[in-house]
């Protein structure tokens, strides 16, 4: 079992439709592949943590990194873990039309993301907190006016 965390930038802002499509496709494929985790999206900023069997996780990362919808994919961590911390796969973002999303499975508003599981080490939990901050800004209840700058470590 391993987990991978990366941040990236959408090439073009993703519409509600794009996001919904990504959510349903990823949920379906991830369930089949035993991938769990969470994805944050806001104003072109993307961050994702996912966990699964090493070979499957690696090939998923490879596929995601090649995906033309985003670029500047920067892997922050890629490590073996003792056990899964997430039970399913979900996404958090601010839809322009939140009404349609309320009932969608695996969807959360950024400020409704459940607390991070205790099984994550504090270093990993802090990493997720930091990527969440990088994606949503300091106050996740408000969509940031301007996207916070995502600079990648050199």
């Amino acid at each position, binding site marked *: 079992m391993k987990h991978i965390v990366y941040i990236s930038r959408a090439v073009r802002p993703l519409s509600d439709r794009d996001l919904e499509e990504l959510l349903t496709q990823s949920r379906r494929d991830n369930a089949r592949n035993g991938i769990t985790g969470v994805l944050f999206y806001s104003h072109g900023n993307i961050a994702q943590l996912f966990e699964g069997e090493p070979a499957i996780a690696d090939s998923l990362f490879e596929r995601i990194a090649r995906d033309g919808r985003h670029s500047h994919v920067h892997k922050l*961590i890629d490590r073996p873990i003792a056990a899964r911390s997430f039970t399913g796969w979900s996404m958090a973002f601010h839809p322009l039309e939140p009404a349609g999303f309320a009932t969608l499975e695996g969807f959360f508003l950024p400020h409704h993301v459940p607390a991070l599981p205790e099984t994550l080490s504090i270093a990993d939990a802090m*990493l997720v907190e*930091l990527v969440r*901050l990088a994606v949503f800004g300091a106050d996740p209840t408000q969509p940031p006016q301007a996207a916070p700058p995502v*600079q990648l470590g050199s």
Partner: protein
Amino acid sequence: MLRGSRMPNIPFSQLLRQLPAGVATLEGPELRFGFVNEAMRALVGENAEGQPIAQHPGQLPTALLDVLPQVYATGKPYTAKACLCTPQPAAKQDCRYFDLALEPYSDEQDQPAGLLLLAIDVSEQEAARQQAHELALVTRHLDARLRVLTETAPLITYTSDAQGRCIYASPQWYRFTGQPPTADLTAIWPLLIHPEDRLRVLYEAETARRTGTGWNYEYRLRRFDGQYRWVLSRALPEVHPPDPPVYWHGALTEVHDQRELADALRRGEAELRFLADSIPELIWTATAEGFIDYYNRYTTDYSGLTKDELGPTGWVSLLHPSEQAEAARRWVQCVASGEAYEGEYRMRRLDGAYRWHIIRARQLADGAVLRWFGACTDVHDQNLLRQVLQTQYDELARAHHDLDTFVYAASHDLRQPALNLRGLFDELRRTATFTDPEQALLLGMVDGALTQFDNTLHDLAVTVQTQRAQQDPVEVLDLGLILEEVLLGLRPQAIQREAVLDVDVAEAPGLVYGRANLRSVVHNLVSNALKFAHPGRPPHIRLRSYHTPDGEPVFEVQDNGLGMEMADSSNPVFQLFVRQHSHIEGTGVGLYLVQRIVRSHGGHVKVASTLGEGTTFSIYWTRPA
């Protein structure tokens, strides 16, 4: 020319008539039109036959007409190329160009008989020629422009072919390299490239030629003065599909200064890293989002973990497990707000030992981007030292307290036997009769010693008590009232010595202080003034409370007593049991007490004194000396 040719059998005149070229004969010295075919009619008009050409020139140019007599006379053929033949009246689109030829012919006697006029329409060719000419002009302009541009732009332009031969270099190349115009570019150029760059450049250019792509690389090129300068070489193939490219055109720009600057920056960064790596502190940098992107070598040495193992947030896992959550929360907070980070945590060393560190990080602008710069300073030894000091301090405080308790207990316990002694002594004096006057003197001395003994015990007890009372709660005190109370207690002594006491607290009537402490200070100062009165005059004691110009409250006790010898008026030595006037009873505890109380409340005592005239004590309640 025509003569002697054999006519074919077909009707010749019909052939001539249909010829696309104009044909006419001009007969006799008058050059009258003889035969005129269709095409010629278009030039000279209908019914020209029989007319002399001079009267019926049609559209034929005058230049031709002018040479006619001469051609007839000399019998030399004449041709004129692309003559403009203009209809009358002229209309631009009707202008046509003809090649005109005059061919003399003779009769049987070889006498000139006439001229054959041929006119071939070359309008198309002429138009094409003119177009070509205009094109050539435009091309020349373009060419000139290109030349000016390539020769004046501050860069070198060049062209090479598919075999790698350099077939052109702009004059700047010669100026830059100092090579003569006759230099063999292909042979010399590689030799001017810095030996360290040469193979790479040749290889890259060769690869680009083989794959038909452009190139873009930097190398050092030797300048006329022998210096190697960094240049950027970029070229693109000239492509005309489907053929493979034959030429590569490129430009060479000097980028030496930029390159040096970049190198300096890189070196600077490298130097900084080197510095950071040699400092025996844990040093790291992080992106604006709080992901650590650099740990110095000491960090990996200290932790025994690689940079990869530490990862962007791994530092927190080095902390003592009980401190990790708090440290992580604080870091996320600081990243969100940009506030500086500071905390004191235990960090695990490679051998498993936890050592105390102060972790500090600040966000700084590194060029245009914000970055975090952090350091963890080992304060373990300081902390240990502090702990040792604290322990020692605690022990001292305890010992001090024990000593106080002992003194208090001792003085208290001795008080009773002293009282008993006094009682027994008084009883002895009352009942026994002493006849010897020396014995009376002795009795007086015993009496005095007993009194002093008792006073000493009393004062010791008071000292200890006052020290304990230093936590005496402070309140706003009415100075006038307190003085009244204290003076009331000292009335017997004052009356005995016929003392005059002046009290003036109007200027600063209130004071924030501990009640017991204030009483103790006033009591000691006033009783001191009474005690050390001058034998020659009744004591006059002035008590005053006022403010300095800075608003600081001062209490002053001025007497006209014996006065003291002052070594240093601003720093008088008030030591326990040290007394100025040994012939006067007293324990020496009083002034020491005053000093202790005032100092421990952040004030100070000042003394002004003249031997034989008097002493003034000033208590500055709120400001240390």
